[in-house]
């Protein structure tokens, strides 16, 4: 944990730093659903951007376009797809593989040999605190532990850009907060560029350097907040007046987005 890391928002966004860029992104599905309308923003290394918005507004579509699962119908998306980590809504662990074999999966799919990936697999398991559970099968894990294993699996290839599709939405409040704390520790050690989707405003404010609010369909960016709190952020930040004030403003915008 690098306690003296500068707040990521202070880093000037030169072209070299840009890890993910959307410009005038448009998405209309074949059935005519207009999902995204003129979405433009960029994320640099060391930035953690969260998108909040009403359900069905196209937040997840943004991730699917960034990762290449969907192709945008207009505008541009530029990102290095070879250095991309994607964390799904559910943990998508293979139930027939142990935790360790699951963590090895993505590297294995990219043709990395087991001996070659071993140090990274060890490090990832340590980082998410699953080293002692590495021989267990997914059915023996709690929801939070499954999500940790899923995170570790994405960490092995050391992606520059991390996409998170509401990864903690199914967890209880305590597990979610604990995983938020752990995710921030990962963010500070690895300094990746993060794009995070969530329904929870508290989660968005706690994690991010920047929070974007999206309107109901077709999704547009209707508000953009720099989150001024320094990293490392501690658990009690959630109860500071500034935190509540900022959350209140985002909540207000979000309510407007529904109309």
């Amino acid at each position: 944990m690098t306690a003296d890391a500068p707040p990521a928002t202070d880093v000037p966004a030169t072209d070299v730093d840009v890890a993910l860029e959307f410009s005038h992104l448009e998405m209309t599905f074949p059935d005519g659903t207009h999902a995204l309308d003129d979405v433009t923003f960029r994320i640099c290394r060391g930035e953690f951007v969260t998108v909040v918005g009403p359900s069905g507004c196209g937040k997840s579509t943004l991730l699917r376009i960034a990762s290449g699962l969907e192709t945008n119908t207009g505008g541009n998306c530029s990102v290095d797809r070879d250095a991309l980590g994607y964390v799904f809504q559910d943990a998508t662990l293979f139930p027939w593989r142990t935790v360790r074999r699951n963590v090895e999966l993505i590297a294995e799919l990219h043709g990395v040999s087991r001996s070659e990936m071993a140090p990274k697999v060890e490090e990832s398991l340590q980082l998410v605190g699953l080293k002692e559970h590495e021989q267990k099968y997914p059915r023996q894990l709690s929801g939070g532990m499954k999500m940790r294993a899923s995170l570790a699996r994405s960490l092995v290839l050391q992606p520059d850009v991390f996409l998170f599709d509401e990864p903690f939405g199914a967890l209880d409040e305590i597990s979610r907060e604990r995983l938020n704390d752990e995710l921030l520790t990962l963010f500070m050690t690895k300094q990746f560029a993060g794009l995070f989707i969530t329904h929870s405003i508290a989660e968005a404010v706690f994690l991010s350097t920047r929070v974007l609010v999206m309107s109901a369909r077709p999704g547009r960016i209707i508000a953009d907040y720099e989150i001024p709190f320094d990293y490392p952020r501690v658990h009690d930040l959630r109860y500071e007046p500034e935190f509540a004030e900022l959350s209140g403003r985002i909540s207000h915008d979000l309510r407007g987005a529904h109309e």
Partner: protein
Amino acid sequence: MSDDGIGVVMPPSSMAPAMTGENPLHEVDDRDRSGGRIPWARIIGPIIVFGLFVGFWYLAHYVLMEERRKFLIPPPHEVVKDSFLTWSVSGSESLANIAGGGLSDQLDGLLLSAKVAMLGLSIAIVLGIALATLMSQAKWIEQSIYPYLVALQAIPILAFVPLIGVLWGFNFRSRVLVTVIIALFPIVANTLFGLLSVDRSYHELMTLNGSSRWTRLRKLQFPAAMPSIFTGLQISAGLSVIGAVVGDFFFRQGQPGIGQLIDRYRASLAYSQMYGAVILASLLGIVVFWFFGWLSHKVVGHWYESRSG
């Protein structure tokens, strides 16, 4: 949790403390599965039912049947004596010599039928999994083949058995063919279901990491389909024994399997041997069914929780 409750029976005194000491939450669960408060119940229960069955058999022979029809249901001890305790019958000692009697002939017939069933099942497994894999690759392939599989399943194959005999000869090959036709469908249907019911997010995980069709099949779809494949195998294994026995029964020619023996014993009024042959044939079915259940538990039991637990 995966090893208990299967084939291990411990006396009550050693079982209770072990469970309460280690995992009180699962105590009720385990006790239910081992059959109430008496762990022996899984043994005792079936023994009682077996006793009732044999008792009813005796009752049928000695009380329920009219005197002149008693020979149709010989008492169990006669069946055991004529079928399993007599090695072979020679000369004109009994009516049964017309068909050949005793354990040696029955085991020869059983062995032949077992060979037919096993070879037919093996071919059905290879062919069935290959077909299902092919069908899983494109909707149009699936739609092109599926109607014919249903047709194959629907035709009254046993009525065709004499025809197959005439066309192919009343030989080993024809019997295997009958077995393959009977055992094929459950394997194809269950394998296909398993291969196609993988969640979309898992496929997307593979897509995101640039997996080929082959990698996807090997690392995701086949492992995920294993529980379904074993369900199909278990059904087909039972069917293959039925196919081998009943197919043989209808052939009425060639080297006799257990099915033909049943028919011959019936025709020569050797009812005690006939019941013996029926018992042997069903034992073969039970052994095969049990074997695939055991294999399934060995292969996927460590990660897959079957409903019967």
